[in-house]
Every structure is written in C-alpha cells, then in structure tokens.
C-alpha cells in the first residue's frame, strides 16, 4: 500500500547513514549559521546540504519543495526590501517603489536560513524510511506508544483515502449523486463519512486487541526488530557534527 511519505528508495550511501546522524545534521545546519556571523557559513552549509542531496540522488525531489517556498520567500524579499524599518541606503527603484540595501540583506538572510532548514530536513525525509526514523527515535528514548502513534498516522491516512473511495463507489452505486451543487455535496456528506467513522472505530478496537495479544504494553525490556546501524561512519558523523557545533559556539563566545 502507498504510505504517506516522501521517502525515495535509492539505496545510496546517504540512505545507509542512520537517522540519528541526520537529525544531528539538521540541528547543525540550523545552529552553526545562526551562531556565526555573515552569509558565508550559511552558504557553505547550504552547499554541503545540496552536495549530500545530490549524492543521495534525491536533489530533483527537493526542487518542488524549494519552488513552493520560493513563493513565500519572494513576498518576504518584496516587503522587507520596501518597508524594512532600518532601510537607509536606496539600492534601486522600480517605477515608484524604492528597494533598500538593508531590507534586502535582511530578507536575504531569512531566505538563506529557510533554504538551509529545508534542505537539511529534506535529507532526513527523502532518504530515511519513516519506520526506521521512528525506530531510532524509540531507541533514543521516545516512548514506544508515541512511536506507534506516529507510524500509524503515516499508514492510516492513505488507508482512509482508499476506504473513502470504496465508500463513495458504494453509495454512488445506490443512486446517490456526489457531484454537483453545494446542496448535493452536503447531502452526500453523511452517507460518506458515516461508514468511514464506524470503520475506523471498529478497526481501532481490533488493532488494539491485536497489539495487546502480542504483548505491546508488556513492562519488560524490549528488543528491536532491526539491529542498530553500526559502522564507523555512524560514530564519526555525529562526533564531527557535535564538535563543529561546539567549536562554533566557543568561537562566538570568545569573540
């Protein structure tokens, strides 16, 4: 079944890095440019993220996400360029509107930060199977109950879409119009949503019974289905990231 996820199974070296390292990478990609002054750290981090995305063969999948956020970013550039409170030095004018250096620099900083976060999060989202991510979060101390809730949400939405389609077909087969005016659609609402709610209530009960018979809430220590992803890379990467963050903070404090 289709799952609700952007995960791309490309089997590259980036996919083999464990999700803990990728989570730490997100933290560094936000923290380091925020701590260090100027545009250079942010640009460097962005370049690194793009390099990693390209290695993971998922760069093409980031572009639609970037395109979507560009719309919002463009409006930020426009508004800050025109109206930023510290605007002093006029850079250029379009028709009657003047764009100022300070506002454009400020909005440039915001854009860079957004792109950084977007690309860093994309590395995690596009190259990590959601179930692996949740498993490693549970390994890090997340409650298994919460982990289960997270993973079932990812599965349940596509499942409900499929059920909804079947129910729509079943009710149309009984002569119910589902297309047309607002009134027609409103009349169609109850016959469609009723079975969805009933089915999910019933299946929730069945699911919890099925979990309980497999000792889901047993108090004893649990083992994991998959062995933890070991390897030198998965020790070295977090270490390097932690050191880089610490170094950035120390450097900033010393200044």
């Amino acid at each position: 079944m289709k799952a609700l996820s952007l995960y791309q199974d490309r089997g590259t070296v980036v996919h083999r890095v464990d999700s803990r390292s990728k989570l730490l990478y997100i933290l560094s990609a936000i923290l380091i440019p925020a701590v260090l002054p100027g545009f250079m750290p942010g640009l460097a981090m962005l370049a690194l993220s793009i390099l990693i995305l390209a290695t993971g063969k998922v760069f093409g999948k980031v572009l639609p996400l970037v395109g979507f956020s560009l719309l919002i970013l463009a409006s930020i550039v426009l508004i800050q360029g025109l109206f930023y409170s510290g605007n002093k030095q006029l850079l250029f004018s379009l028709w009657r509107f003047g764009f100022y250096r300070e506002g454009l620099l400020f909005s440039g900083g915001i854009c860079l930060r957004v792109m950084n976060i977007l690309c860093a999060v994309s590395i995690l989202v596009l190259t990590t199977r959601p179930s692996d991510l949740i498993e490693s979060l549970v390994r890090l101390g997340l409650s298994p109950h919460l982990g289960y809730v997270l993973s079932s949400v990812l599965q349940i939405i596509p499942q409900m879409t499929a059920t909804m389609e079947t129910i729509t077909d079943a009710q149309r087969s009984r002569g119910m119009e589902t297309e047309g005016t607002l009134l027609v659609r409103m009349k169609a609402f109850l016959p469609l949503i009723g079975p969805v709610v009933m089915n999910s209530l019933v299946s929730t009960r069945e699911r919890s019974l099925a979990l309980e018979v497999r000792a889901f809430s047993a108090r004893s220590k649990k083992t994991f289905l998959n062995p933890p992803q070991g390897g030198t890379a998965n020790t070295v990467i977090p270490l390097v990231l932690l050191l880089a963050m610490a170094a950035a903070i120390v450097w900033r404090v010393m200044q």
Partner: protein
Amino acid sequence: MNKIEIRKLRFHYSAGEEILSDISLDFDARSTAIIGQNGAGKTTFVKLLKGLLQPVSGDVLIDGINTRDMTVAGLARHVGLVFQNPNDQIFKNKVLDEVMFGPSNIGQSPDEARASALAALQMVGLADKQAENPYDLSLSERKLISIASIVAMHTDIIIFDEPTIAQDHAGKERIKAIIRELAKQGKLVLTIIHDMDFVAETFERTLVFAEGKVLLDGPTREVYGLPGILKQSHLEPPHITQLYNRIGCQGAVLTVEEFIAARRAGTGRPPVSA
C-alpha cells in the same frame, strides 16, 4: 434482448499494464458466475459494468445505454451492485432506513421505498430486525442487509461481489434462494465468487477470467467438465465433481443429488439436464 452487451472492451489503470484486454460478451437473463484467480480482473470488470470505471476503449451497453453517456447514480436504476464489504455502505442507525436509502435515491416515493425495503428484508429473512441498529448485528447479517438494500431498488441487473463471505451454511442457502428468486423474476444476476460448490449449485452460466481475458464461457456444467483448462487458471471443479471423477466416472455432476442419481443409475455419464 441482451441485458448487457460488451464490445471490444479494454481497460488499464496505467498504460502498458493491461487489466482487461479485448473482451466482447453478451449477457442475457441467465444467472452467471464470474470465477478466476485473485487479480484476474473480475472486480475491475464489474466496476466497468456499473460505470464506476470507464473503458479505455470499447463500449459497455446496459439495457442499450452506453455507460459513457450516464452517471453512476443514473445507472443505479438499471444495475445494482452489492459490494464485498457491507461496512463500506451502512451508515443509517436503523436497518429499515438503510435499506430504504437506495430506493429513495432513484425516485421511489417514501411509501414505495418502505414497501420495497420491507419486501427485500422479508426476502433476506431479516424482517424482524428492521428497527435494529445495523452495527448491533453480526457481519453475516450486515451482508444480508447490504443485499436487501440493493434488491429493494428493483434493478433489472444485480451484481454480487463475493456474496457468501462470512456466511454459514444457512446463510449460503438463503443467498442461493435469493439468487434463484431474482433469476425467476427475469433479472440478470451476475456474481463474482470463489466458492465453486456454490457456483455449481446456483448458476446456469459460468465465465472464467484469467489475466484479463475470458478463458471459458459456457453453461456451468460444460465449464466444470474441462478440468484441464480450469487448472490452467488455478481453479478446481466443485468437490462433488472431483469426487465423481476420482472414483472413475466420466463427466461433470454438479450437485450431491446428481451424484446420487448417477450412482444409483449405475451410469458413468452425467444426467442430461440439471
């Protein structure tokens, strides 16, 4: 007149992965079973008959109406489809209201709808449960409610998707009687089904689907008389037919009664008519 005519029907969800290829068929009033392995295209086929899907090429004519020219809700006057899972349609909290929903949708007046619904509930044997909440009933009873709610629409064609699921012997006998009664009223009953014994006892005509094509089409007795081709589509003849052949008799008996009659008569040949 043929109730359904299918001309050069082709269908696929995504190009290159053909689900149904070049099917031409006619259905008259004979009750017909559609059998075949999972994934053979049976459910897709009935969805096309119901207008829930549109052919990629070719035409489906229901009582002379092309399914391309009418909405699903419009076709509902002509074709009724009982879905596999009754939970996908039941939403009222009274059995009677649930059964009246379809008839009211296709223009029966409240009194007519009530009368049709009561008659249909009588037919499926749930007349005494009309005031109950469908979700307080068992799955097999809910299945019968979903059957009643289509029967009450008085369509000329009724399609069942796996009607015997979750039914005990009594339930199966009940459904068999319903199908025979509907056929007697001159309606076309089409059924997707995996229960070969039920097919042998109930349907006049049988279609075997395999990989998007109609592999066999004929009177049920002829189809079950070809175990070689059935095996090719991973199907087996009914148990009683298998037993008859394993004790060395030739031909296809379809019911226990036929088996006994043939054995008593001491012939190895099947009776001439059912």
